[in-house]
């Protein structure tokens, strides 16, 4: 599990996370990393509201044919309100969840709205199963 409380701290972990994801497949790892990065941005910014006394927890669970990612923050819960929002073309923010939805196979939120879990299936035609 990774934990961090600021964008600066998360920046120091990005390479390790990318390397861990690439153990299965570099091509899918990049898309999954995009989803993780957007989830973390949301958690730090909207969830914890950049309060550095609060942490974000990122878990990467590997199963034979899929990876399951969980991102939890220590905020009051914001995800349910964001998930129903539609992004207008000229909007300057709010594209994070749209990108997560595009790059993963399924996702769910906890009741409070401070935790998102998403699953990316491993395509064994061109990626190694765990």
């Amino acid at each position: 599990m990774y934990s961090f409380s600021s964008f600066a701290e998360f920046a120091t972990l990005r390479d390790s996370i990318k390397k861990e994801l690439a153990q299965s497949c570099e091509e899918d790892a990049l898309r999954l990393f995009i989803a993780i990065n957007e989830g973390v941005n949301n958690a730090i910014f909207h969830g914890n509201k950049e309060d550095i006394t609060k942490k974000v927890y990122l878990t990467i669970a590997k199963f034979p044919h899929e990876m399951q990612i969980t991102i939890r923050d220590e905020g009051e819960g914001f995800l349910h309100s964001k998930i129903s929002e539609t992004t207008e073309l000229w909007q300057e923010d709010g594209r994070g969840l749209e990108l997560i939805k595009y790059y993963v196979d399924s996702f769910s939120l906890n009741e409070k709205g401070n935790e998102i879990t998403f699953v990316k299936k491993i395509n064994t035609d061109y990626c190694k199963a765990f």
Partner: protein
Amino acid sequence: MEISISTNTEEVIVTLVGSIYVEDAAVLREKLIAFVESEYKQFFIKLHGVDYIDSSGLGVLVAIQKKALQKNGSVTLVGAKGVVKELLELTRLNQVFRMQS
């Protein structure tokens, strides 16, 4: 992210290299807002060397385009490829900017 900026009369040419994350987006916003709020209105943003831009970076580009359009200028994105091109298409932002290969 590495950023280099050159200017001529009304144009700003911005070359970006590397990955654009939230902390880079903040730098980009600060630098480009200064130009768009002065006499410059045409922006050419070269993305040939960019391998990733997150949604905060995309948001900065939209903000600059909105300000440039208010001054009858515009932002042209040059050389987007790979996942950067994919992200611009997915978010339909390729309809917001002038795109050049």
